[in-house]
């Protein structure tokens, strides 16, 4: 084998490697894009879940909250809703989708929507839940609202990436680390809203409960039960935000 034949072989190998890498890059980008568009599918499944929820009764019947213990207040009562996030001694556990994550207490943004802290791509906030401090303590006879990110800046699954998979009757546990109390909820419905729908006061009232929408603290629920709402983004990323929200409704059972 001559010297230039050898060179040619190595050159061919190098070019082949380059081609493989470029192809791999293209595949990677394609896969990334597919993963990131998952929220669109999420929205679809969420809608289906909502439809099924409307027709199905909860598997476990809710119990009057008055007979159940309620976690103590989670934050200093003087803490402004305009203040930034603070840790609260809760964990959110959803066994059916393998969620077991810490909870931050969050306030309200300058645009008067519930805060959802962000950070660099490896920041823990992408894998944490956010309890709205203007809503009720989970387990109280009112409405508590907990949000989580659907994905992170790289499109990787966030804390609430799979809440679209929740079905009526699925268990949601809010664990009080101070006392060991497990506040147990059962999913009763799920619904996907467009941003326009979610801005409707009636829908907001369903999501947050009446008090926060009226500029008050949480108010007692009409049915005397403790409600929990989970919310995350869904749909397509348009103009700097996702164009839908998926909301899971649950009621306390124990």
């Amino acid at each position, binding site marked *: 084998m001559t010297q230039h034949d050898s060179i040619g072989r190595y050159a061919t190998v190098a070019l082949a490697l380059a081609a493989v890498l470029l192809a791999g*890059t293209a595949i990677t980008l394609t896969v990334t894009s597919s993963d990131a568009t998952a929220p669109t599918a999420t929205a679809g499944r969420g809608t289906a879940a909502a439809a099924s929820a409307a027709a199905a009764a909860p598997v476990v019947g809710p119990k009057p909250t008055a007979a159940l213990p309620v976690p103590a207040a989670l934050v200093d009562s003087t803490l402004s809703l305009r203040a930034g996030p603070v840790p609260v001694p809760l964990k959110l556990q959803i066994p059916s989708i393998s969620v077991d994550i810490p909870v931050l207490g969050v306030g309200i943004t300058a645009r008067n929507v519930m805060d959802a802290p962000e950070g660099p791509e490896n920041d823990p906030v992408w894998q944490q839940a956010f309890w709205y401090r203007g809503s009720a303590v989970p387990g109280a006879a009112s409405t508590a609202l907990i949000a989580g990110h659907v994905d992170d800046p*790289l499109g990787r699954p966030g804390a609430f990436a799979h809440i679209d998979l929740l079905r009526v009757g699925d268990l949601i546990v809010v664990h009080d680390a101070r006392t060991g109390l497990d506040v147990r909820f059962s999913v009763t419905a799920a619904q996907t809203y467009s941003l326009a729908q979610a801005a409707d006061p009636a829908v907001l009232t369903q999501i947050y409960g009446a008090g926060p929408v009226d500029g008050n603290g949480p108010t007692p629920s009409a049915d005397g039960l403790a409600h929990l709402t989970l919310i995350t983004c869904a749909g397509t990323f348009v103009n700097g935000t996702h164009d839908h929200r998926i909301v899971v409704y649950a009621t306390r059972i124990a």
Partner: protein
Amino acid sequence: MLIIGVLIALSVLVGLLTIRRYRAGTVVGFLLAPTILLLAGTSASAAIVPTVPLGTSANYSVLAGSTVTNTGNSTLAQSLGLWPGTSITGFPPGVVTPPGTTDNNNAAAQQAQSDLTAAYTNAAGRPIDATTTADLANLHLGAGVYAGPSHGALSLNGPLTLDGAGDASSVFIFQTNSTLITGSGSTVSLINGAQECNVFWQVGSSATLGTGSVFVGNILALTSITVNTGVTVHGRALAQNGAVTLDDDTFVAPSCATTTTTTTTTTVPPTTTTTTTAPGTPPGTGTTPPGTGTTPPGTGTTPPGTGTTPPGTGTTPGGTPIGGTPPGGGGGGGGSTILGTGTTSTTLGITTLGASTITSTIPSVVGTPFTGGGPPAGRGIPWPAMVLAALSAAAGVLGLVLRRRGPNRQSVQERS
């Protein structure tokens, strides 16, 4: 970075296989250059910690980018600045103590923001001397540059002691790419000559100081700073892009005395009772009835200094944790006797509806939170692979060129 280095090394190997018999000297250089670069990138450990020059931003107790909002009778020992925003509210009743000035969207504030950007970049660029726990409670640190795990969020839910070891120029820099959140029971203690003006907190997003706490140091935040009710800050709240929110707070110019002093900061919310709790008790679990706090807030003993940061001449040996004690479970920091103040436990009691005890005006929500991390596509481009592909392609092309030149070279060799 390591992955990129490996990929570049692979590219080098491909190039070597292609041209090794023709360009021995080039190959050596091809191998040495990235190797030297990689070694240079990993040898940047610093044993000296100079201070962070704040420039004209040192003239400000509060400096913000978007808005400054104050509630109640906050007092600033130094100037108040805002740029490029224009909305400063709550002054009065807030007070800027003369000769401090209120610089709202003027040239001075703009220059201060420019200097703050430089200071932030300076602080963020320092190599760390040690990785701390995410919660800084119960740590006893010497001078140095510190960050939590993966440069993640920092919190302070107990006592933190900064030890100057007798050197008044000791510098302490804390870095986080995320948030800094201090609890209402947190304390910062400076001992053995450590000075308030030499404590820096580089915060990659936003900082929140717990109600009634006393904080020490210069906060250099990329976004916003929220100072909750009744906080005393021996330092500065400097936010580049976002808002600074105040509520009945007191800003004292950070001291820069030349003598060795001990400053103890305590945390005593005015509406809570100071009690000593068992170690490891989570914050906010006190059962003492509210209302009879006996220790007044803002008991820092160091008088206000001149508010000017000395030139960057500090030469402090690199920091090493001094007998740091891991924080106890729950981060309550209870039972610590370092500061002799015990732990402040906020009385919470049982409530039926949680936030219904909030007494301030509650804004009406008008929308849902944004809980997506970013656009679905277009991020996460594998640049290392792209670079490797480009280098490999270049090596291949070079090989082909050499192949074409091969017969001529061979004939030259044959002629010789």
